[in-house]
């Protein structure tokens, strides 16, 4: 179910090269399109591979997205509203919510094996307690901004209750999985502008195929390495029995200092030291962090039939993917990762035997996670556009022409 199926075919729209992630879909109150004027001046943003930069050695899936794992869908609701001085509770608003739906069935009744990994704990990912206890994921995964976690949790629960009035009779009791990163430089954090309407819209927007990236959904107000960032995704085909396995990653990137940024082994951040986040109306409020962001959320999906103990190992490898883009997981960062397997749908009380993978092929899955996470973070950077938010603060996009020039200078592009 799309919110505006008559006027926008989302897939065609994205393929047209105009995949401007900040486009909020008409028809849902409170959501507005970015001003037409800013659309017209926005340089085209593309995915990393479209620049000729390919990470790693494994082949990607069809869409190079987490949705290449069969059954996984992703939807966004983006809220971009207002300009000028911050008026707490009013705006300007640069936020949203991203919903990752692990499969297309009834999640509360058909749970998936899952595990989380905390690289640095200064963040929130609700619902991991029950996942640690039971190893089962029973809900969508939501990414949003810090101040909206409670509202998204509540709204997510409400949507789940509508779909399944018996939800609280289920054991284990499903708890919404909601992660956050901090968008305060552009967004009216105190206003808590994401609620029931946006959560329902993000779920309804959920679809397979291409995934909108950059300044979209929960990633709308985010930055990484001092550049505008947000949502990014990628996938890999890993060796395994039969047709092998698929691994997909989706990130909400809001981490890292500029001088740390590495693209495919090249220290791009040191080559582009300018274009740091730029204070607008209140120069005294410059964040003084050298453009540092904080926090990185990652969800990893695979169709390999893994157990929680194995999925936890995949989750750890997401840290290596982040490290290859230069991040060090700073003290202030909430670097929280969740991995799930779509292979086995576990029904309450069901004792059927399920296929399980041994550790024989897990090294290939580790590589797939590392590569997919690395590329997903870089896609978040190359797809996000320059955004001005509250108090006219601006976060610049990674300039793609300069990125290409740096890669050429390092002999990584012809």
């Amino acid at each position, binding site marked *: 179910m799309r919110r505006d199926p008559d006027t926008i075919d989302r897939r065609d729209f994205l393929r047209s090269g105009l995949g401007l992630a900040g486009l909020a879909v008409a028809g849902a109150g409170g959501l507005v399109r970015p001003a037409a004027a800013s659309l017209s001046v926005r340089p085209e943003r593309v995915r990393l591979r479209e620049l000729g930069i390919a990470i790693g050695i494994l082949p990607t899936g069809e869409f190079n997205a987490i949705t290449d794992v069969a059954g996984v869908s992703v939807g966004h609701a983006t809220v971009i509203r207002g300009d000028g001085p911050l008026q707490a509770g009013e705006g300007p608003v640069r936020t949203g919510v991203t919903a990752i739906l692990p499969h297309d069935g009834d999640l509360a009744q058909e749970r998936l094996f899952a595990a989380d990994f905390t690289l640095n704990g200064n963040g929130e990912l609700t619902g991991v307690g029950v996942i*640690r*206890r*039971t*190893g089962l994921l029973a809900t969508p995964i939501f990414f949003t901004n810090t101040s909206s976690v409670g509202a998204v949790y509540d709204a997510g629960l409400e949507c789940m209750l509508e779909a399944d009035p018996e939800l609280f009779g289920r*054991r*284990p009791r499903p708890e919404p999985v909601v992660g956050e990163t901090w968008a305060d430089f552009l967004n009216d954090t105190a206003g808590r502008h994401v609620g029931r309407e946006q959560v329902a819209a993000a779920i309804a927007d959920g679809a397979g195929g291409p995934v909108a990236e950059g300044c979209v959904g929960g990633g709308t107000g985010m930055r990484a390495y001092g550049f505008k960032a947000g949502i990014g995704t990628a996938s890999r085909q890993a060796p395994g*029995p039969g047709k092998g396995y698929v691994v997909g990653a989706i990130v909400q990137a809001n981490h890292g200092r500029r001088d740390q940024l590495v693209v495919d082994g090249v220290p791009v951040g040191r080559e582009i030291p300018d274009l740091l986040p730029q204070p607008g109306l209140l120069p005294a409020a410059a964040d003084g962090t050298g453009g540092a962001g904080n926090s990185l959320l990652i969800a990893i999906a695979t169709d390999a*039939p893994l*157990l*929680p*103990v194995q999925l936890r*190992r995949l989750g750890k490898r997401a840290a290596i993917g982040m490290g290859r883009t230069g991040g060090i997981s700073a003290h202030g960062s909430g670097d929280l990762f969740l991995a799930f397997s779509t292979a*086995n749908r*576990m*029904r*309450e*009380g*069901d*004792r*059927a*035997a*399920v*296929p*399980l*993978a*041994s*550790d*024989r*092929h897990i090294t290939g899955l580790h590589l797939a996670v590392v590569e997919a996470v690395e590329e997903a973070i870089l896609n978040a950077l190359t797809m996000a556009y320059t955004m001005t938010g509250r108090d006219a603060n601006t976060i610049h996009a990674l300039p793609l022409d300069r990125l290409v020039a740096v890669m050429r200078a390092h002999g990584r592009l012809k």
Partner: protein
Amino acid sequence: MRLRDLDLSVGGLQPGRRNAITDVRGVAAGHLDLRTPATASGLTAILPHPAGLGPQALFVGRWSVDGGEGLTGLGVAEDFGTISSPLVLAPAVAAGAVYHGLIRYGLDRDPGLSTSTGWPPLVVAIDESAGNAPAALRSGLDVEAVARVLAAAGAEVVEGTSGIGSALSSFGCPGGVGSASRVDLGPGNWTVGLLLAASGGDPGNLAVDGYPLRSHLQPLNPPSPPGTLAVVVATDAPLIPLQLQRLAGRCAIGLARVGILDAVTREGVAIAFSTVPAPDGDGGEREIVPEPDLEPLFQAAIEASQEAVLNALLAADPATTGALSVQDWPEAVRLSRSQ
């Protein structure tokens, strides 16, 4: 003497034929006693699968007091969730020597030392809190001793002051090692068996099936000094590592209920494994035990851990148990129940 010889029991689940960890098919246990005029100590080994078996890893899960100490092999056990080594309960001072002996065992099985043929060794270091001379333990509990304790493992489990129980003290009394089991659990008719090394405990807290004995056993012995509580749990239920962690954790309930896990406990660990092999090769099918079916297994761990502690106490020489005179137990329980 065992608890059931006194017509006493813990809980309502059925014990296995031996009422011991070896009721779980394929599991063997054995002791090696080290005795000199100045030394009473030993080793206890649990073989999770039959000796001579080919490469095979088993799923494992662990619970511990305060994060635990004194357990080797944790890297693989916690990251992969598997073990393939025998578990040897050893005096802490001899843990390195015993580890060395288990490496020898692993190398004999596979010169490449793989995680499915005995590597890494699982040594549970036990703080005996006793007067054994460290040098005597380290020289007496060597590679040879490890080979002997592994060779001694079988279906019969000797309790009390044997093996690692030789120098232990619980509830102010000698001992020791105890074991118990529960069978016919859940829809798979699964078995849970455990063996433990009991240390510590205040006789004032001792309870049989929840009934305190203190009012009826006077005078009370002074508490045992806190040592290491270590429980090894085996099951033939096809549990996965996360579930085995939870099963191990349920032993804490039993240990607290019988009175041995208390505020002064410093070291306590429970390790649970499933005898259903972990997937190997290209993987395979495995039954997953659903959430509600875990409950009888948890209950079994709670009951068996209490009974094993009481068995450890009773198996030690009754003449030396002082105020905990065994013959008074049934009457004490009867009086406690009537109050």
